[in-house]
């Protein structure tokens, strides 16, 4: 009943664990069988292993949190060798979330992933672009287009581009990415945000700003998904502050084919199971046979 199709891949349900909040699934599999999820987006990978950022990495805000993990990850090769086999043993759809600070880095990463069993590449274009002086690929359409079109040329996997809410214009960004070859879009990544330690008179995070996520951003993320759904014809994965089945249904009604749950995993490791059950109950009560019936209905 809850199953959805994304670019020919069937998900048991529209609930995907969001990148960076779910590791590679191992820890959560101790709390519930992760096969019950629609899909899993891996911790953000980069071509080479990264240690991540120093200093405070997590800071609580009103109904949300800021993070500055700095893409600590084992590198694409490390993932393929050490983490992918675990996921392959499970019957679960996999999005390999891939970041990079140069286009070459992305392309090499994609080439390594091409020969694996992952289902989708989720291209994270929010990482600081070293060549453009630290500005992320995901802010200006022109830079985003560049990386997406190159990635599309190389990728043998369906390419989902993960948009940043810091993009100058989310509709134009979505449109540009699709024109450049994106097979699907996921949005939003974290909002660029600031916190200050007023006694130290310094930013809380060593990098000054950090990424805001959680229920606090939901109303903005939902608006962006809605706006994007008006200008593109590819599947959209909605992300941002989803912690209940009601939130998930709102994103679907705004036009999303599936949704990702990120920070919500921190308040209850099996929150995704509650969400899936809630969606099933709701569909039964409302006599909805397929989520297609309500997708983009508003």
């Amino acid at each position, binding site marked *: 009943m809850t199953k959805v199709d994304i670019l020919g891949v069937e998900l048991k349900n529209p609930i995907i664990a969001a990148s960076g909040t779910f590791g590679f699934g191992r*820890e959560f599999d101790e709390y519930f069988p992760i096969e019950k999820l629609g899909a899993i987006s891996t911790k953000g990978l980069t071509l080479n292993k990264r240690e991540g950022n120093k200093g405070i990495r997590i800071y609580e805000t009103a109904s949300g949190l800021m993070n500055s993990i700095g893409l600590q990850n084992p590198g694409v090769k490390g993932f393929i060798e050490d983490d992918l086999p675990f996921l392959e043993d499970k019957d679960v759809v996999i999005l390999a979330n891939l970041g990079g600070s140069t286009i070459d880095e992305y392309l090499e990463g994609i080439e390594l992933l091409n020969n694996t069993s992952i289902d989708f590449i989720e291209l994270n274009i929010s990482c600081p672009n070293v060549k453009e002086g630290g500005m992320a690929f995901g802010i200006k359409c022109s830079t985003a287009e560049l990386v997406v079109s190159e990635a599309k040329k190389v990728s043998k996997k369906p390419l989902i581009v993960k948009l940043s809410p810091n993009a100058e214009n989310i509709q134009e960004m979505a449109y540009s990415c699709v024109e450049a070859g994106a097979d699907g879009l996921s949005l939003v990544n974290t909002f660029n945000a600031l916190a200050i330690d007023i006694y130290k008179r310094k930013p809380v995070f060593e990098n000054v700003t950090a990424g805001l996520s959680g229920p606090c951003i939901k109303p903005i993320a939902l608006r962006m998904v809605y706006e994007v759904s008006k200008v593109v014809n590819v599947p959209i994965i909605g992300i941002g502050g989803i*912690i209940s089945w009601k939130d998930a249904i709102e994103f679907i009604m705004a036009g999303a084919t599936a949704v990702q749950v990120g920070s919500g995993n921190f308040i209850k490791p099996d929150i995704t199971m509650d969400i899936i059950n809630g969606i099933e109950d709701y569909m039964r009560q409302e006599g909805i046979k397929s989520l297609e019936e309500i997708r983009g209905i508003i």
Partner: protein
Amino acid sequence: MKETYRKGIIHTNTEISPNIYELVLEGDFHGRPGQFYMLRGWEELDPFLPRPISIADIDSGKIKFLYEVRGRGTHIISKLKKGHSLSLLGPLGNGFDVKVEGKIALITGGIGIAPMLYLAKQLSGEVHIYSGFRNNAYFLDQIRPYVKAVNIATENGSVGHKGFVTDLFDPKDFDLVYACGPIPMLELVINMCKGITPVYVSMENHMACGIGACLGCTIQTIRGMERVCKEGPVFKGEEVVLND
């Protein structure tokens, strides 16, 4: 399968010293000394994250926590009364090794005393505790029956030695040291013990998931970044890289 957040019914929640509370929940809980639980004393979305709190003791049908009210989360928990429930996830982390022998020193600063009762109960060697506080000593009465000697220091001298607990302690007297408290104290203890006595410290960091997935709680070790909630909170002193 591990158990997700479960409810614990509050048996008592008592202020045993200014701002220091002892919380006892009813239920069948388990865990090793040095392990912790993530506590949520609210259903709302603000505060958003659960709070990591060490196991202070476990008895048949009861678990005890000792916590200091610092910010909003612990404040809310401190207002809960008998009969109320809170949600908790655990036990989490590695904990202290209790299968050790010889003369053992437990060194604590402030609320770092929290895991020591449960630890002292399970250690079989000769245990001495060295506890430093700002003004008031607390929780030691409960620990006393399980240790050979209790040494106290307070910053204002109101109880025990006036000064730091590290003034009282000589690593040469011990085969093993377990420490929990503020970073500067841990750093001092690690340095004092270097090349003399093996020391294990319980580390703190802001946490989101508590189960090893978000990489929010990592600290630097000689092996690279490691997670306080998973590889820790107890680390071998010489392996922790401290650079404040």
